[in-house]
């Protein structure tokens, strides 16, 4: 899609301002129902679009993403723009600086239409923990878009943006991509700078793109990747690589592993069928298919739900009612508390955070506390080593592994909100990529029928560290074969 639009911009058949206005028109037509956006950036986006048009006219070098409108998840800082992470505690927060990914997009005059809804501080798998609004799945308005980057996925699926950025800590790009029927990439840990991303779990977080096609995702990914002195975990030697140039080739001879742990007896038979058809399609494209084992997969969810809340409890300590955001200072709630400072902490965090965020902060506080640290945090860090080792072993035999992205299609609103453990199971196939640090892509692999509706479901490929190009090439070949 991006390439076609770019060619129209180059040929002068279309202007970025015209394109941007058209997307705003779609947003005003659809977003009352979809609810993808928290903040619209009308004025700013049209300014960016004019700058893009001027660049096309001036003959200065343009990029394929110049002038193409996209959407940004609301946990990524944009200078001068309200950035809430869908939390009441940041209701009035205006980011004073640009995240590195935003600075990179500004350099090429990409257009940013607005900030998208999400689970509060990216904690959730349905976008239902947003303090502001529901986002509805464009495929069925009675169902969730997935999460936590539900707004970004829904915006792309509903044609309210050409591309979007999300963040993925345990599946928050891939799971909503699967539910909404779009493509989403979680890059290798360290591929994209996290500077300016509101931190959730720093050892797992990664920013990545959404698009309608694998090529669109490859294009946006290439523009945001690269090392950054403001994020010491970013890796060098990725500069300037254009991942879209690795697409459209034959994938004959690529070996794809099928981890048997991901295809257990309990897998929904409809999902299994679609996944098996996908495997047949890979075979038809010339890929070798081999059954493999990732023996520690069943420990991934408990390891994730120990490490992530531990990091959350530390990262979210900064929201204290003192420096920015909500500050409750009325000394009304906790009469027994004599210190005004402590009272401000307790009241601000009590009323500013939603219940899932508070649950995870408390969980992490517990797992890191004296007497429990070894049994939980330390133990989980050791098992994380084993999970990484599983991938090292498997990549001696195969180039990547394939599974469904999610064990089911989009569920109805409220289906899992009362039981956190049920909600956490939504991440069962996606958390391993974050724990091992490997890249993962979700792409539409088929539809399954539920209650008379056709619902999209994604396939996931997880590849070797820093080998997004092979991952994208295989997903692209799959898409072209459709």
């Amino acid at each position: 899609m991006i390439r076609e639009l770019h060619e129209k911009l180059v040929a002068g058949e279309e202007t970025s301002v015209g394109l941007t206005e058209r997307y705003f028109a779609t947003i005003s037509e659809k977003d009352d129902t979809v609810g993808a956006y928290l903040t619209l950036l009308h004025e700013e986006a049209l300014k960016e679009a004019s700058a893009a048009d001027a660049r096309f006219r001036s003959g200065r070098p343009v990029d394929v993403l110049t002038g193409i409108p996209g959407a940004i998840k609301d946990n990524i800082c944009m200078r001068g723009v309200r950035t809430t992470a869908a939390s009441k505690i940041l209701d009035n927060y205006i980011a004073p600086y640009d995240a590195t990914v935003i600075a990179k997009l500004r350099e090429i005059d990409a257009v940013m239409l607005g900030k998208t809804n999400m689970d509060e501080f990216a904690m959730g798998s349905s976008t239902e923990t947003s303090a502001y609004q529901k986002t509805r799945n464009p495929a069925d308005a009675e169902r969730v878009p997935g999460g936590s980057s539900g707004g970004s996925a829904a915006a792309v699926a509903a044609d309210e943006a050409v591309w979007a950025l999300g963040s993925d800590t345990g599946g928050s790009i891939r799971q909503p991509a699967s539910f909404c029927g779009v493509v989403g990439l979680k890059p290798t840990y360290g591929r994209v700078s996290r500077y300016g991303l509101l931190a959730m779990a720093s050892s797992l977080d990664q920013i990545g793109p959404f698009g309608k096609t694998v090529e669109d995702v490859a294009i946006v990914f290439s523009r945001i990747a690269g090392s950054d002195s403001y994020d010491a975990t970013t890796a060098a030697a990725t500069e300037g690589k254009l991942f879209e140039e690795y697409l459209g080739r034959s994938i004959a001879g690529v070996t794809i592993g099928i981890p048997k742990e991901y295809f257990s007896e309990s897998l929904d038979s409809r999902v299994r069928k679609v996944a098996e058809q996908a495997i047949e399609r890979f075979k038809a494209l010339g890929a070798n298919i081999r059954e493999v084992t990732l023996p520690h997969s069943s420990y991934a969810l408990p390891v994730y739900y120990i490490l992530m809340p531990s990091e959350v409890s530390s990262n979210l300590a900064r929201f204290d009612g003192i420096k920015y955001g909500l500050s409750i200072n009325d000394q009304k709630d906790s009469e027994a508390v004599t210190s005004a400072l402590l009272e401000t902490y307790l009241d601000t965090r009590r009323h500013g955070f939603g219940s899932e965020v508070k649950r995870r902060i408390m969980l992490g506080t517990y797992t890191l506390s004296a007497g429990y640290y070894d049994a939980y945090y330390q133990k989980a860090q050791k098992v994380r080593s084993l999970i990484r080792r599983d991938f090292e072993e498997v990549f001696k035999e195969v180039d990547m592994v394939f599974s469904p992205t999610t064990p089911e299609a989009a569920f109805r609103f409220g289906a899992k909100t009362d039981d956190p453990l049920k909600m956490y199971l939504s991440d069962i196939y996606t958390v391993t990529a974050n724990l091992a640090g490997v890249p993962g892509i979700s792409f539409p692999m088929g539809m399954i029928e539920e209650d008379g509706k056709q619902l999209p479901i994604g396939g996931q490929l997880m590849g070797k560290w820093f080998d997004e190009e092979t991952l994208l090439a295989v997903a692209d070949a799959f898409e072209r074969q459709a």
Partner: protein
Amino acid sequence: MLSKEEVKHIAMLARIGVSEDEVESYQQTLSAVLDSFKELQNLDTEEIASIGHITGRTGEARIDRDESFGTEGEKAIQENFPDSEKSFLKVKSVF
């Protein structure tokens, strides 16, 4: 299951005010989640090293230098700050 006192203690450590009703709800959900971690204890990890950086990067540092954001930067910070007076940021007394 976690006791009410334990939940209150954790909440205080986390600096989150909680009502009695909330204590009960957290007692249930936190205990259920902690129980789900038990299967990890079956795994022998005696000889396993704790993971370090996931892609193996070590000791990367940038040059530490002052950056001036000027009056615009000061203004941006002050506007986000809950309480300020003239060019000063106001915080509560610690004692």
